[in-house]
């Protein structure tokens, strides 16, 4: 019984991280593609666009970070 609990814990952590990484991956891809398109349209604005791109990416990443927290709590907590 205890063995089974360990197995499910590991499985849960893996699932949490894997499923939680889908959303941020898609979101960051969209942000990067739009930012690159904007730079292509107006190359002189890249100094304003690139930092904004990093910041919005960091915010889009938040949900992925939450699932990482959950996975770490399951594994080590």
């Amino acid at each position: 019984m205890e063995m089974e609990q360990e197995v499910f814990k590991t499985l849960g952590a893996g699932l949490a991280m894997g499923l939680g990484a889908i959303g941020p991956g898609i979101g960051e891809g969209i942000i990067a593609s739009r930012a690159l398109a904007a730079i292509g349209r107006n190359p002189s604005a890249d100094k304003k666009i690139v930092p904004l791109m990093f910041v919005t990416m960091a915010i889009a990443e938040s949900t992925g970070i939450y699932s990482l927290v959950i996975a770490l709590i399951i594994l080590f907590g």
Partner: protein
Amino acid sequence: MELNISLSPEILFNLGPIPVTNSLFWSLIISVFLMLFFYRAGRNLKTRPSKFQNLIELLIEESYKFTGLITNNPQRTKKIFPLVLTMFIFILACNLFTFMPGQSAVSIQTEQGLVPVFRAVMADYSMVFVLTAITVILVQIITILTNGPFNYLKKFINLGGPLKFFLGVMELIGELAKIISLSFRLFGNIFAGEVLGLVILSLIPFFVPLPFLFLSLLTSVIQAFVFSVLTLVFANMASQIPENE
């Protein structure tokens, strides 16, 4: 296969009642190194700069310009710039020291067994949490100073109707979530980089870890940048007086 992964840093020795962990030890060493480095840089400035002085001036001037680009206000730039650049340099130095070759092999014998002397400083949650606490407290203080204490409380507790009350509660949750997302972003990325490197190294020890090392090098620079830029953006947002409805 036995991997040695721990969330909390290992204790090296006890200094009286205070346990000294390996990440504390290294953050102190890095702090002293940075202090000496910049003391040396600022000691004898010349009108005709040497190569070293040129490099430091380039770093500071470019980041000052960049800060001005985000705040759009020379006065605010002057106030927030020292904190943001210090955060950036400290986090960057801590992250880059991880890539010093050979450091992970150094370990000493303590009561808990063999303990590595080096640990990535930002892979210790308490260190990251302190940095985040500085940011969050600073942002709250700036909000109170610009809006006044009454308006600040009104932002969270608004009894002007059920919808406004609900929005106030959501605002409070948003502030709390900011702490978690800001701190765990840096911690998670660096910790994950360490674990990934360890796992790949234990699977295939030659050549294959190189691209992963490069990836974590990239992440460590970007995360230092993101942390300081987010601090800058939050502080800048807090210092703007909101438009009246």
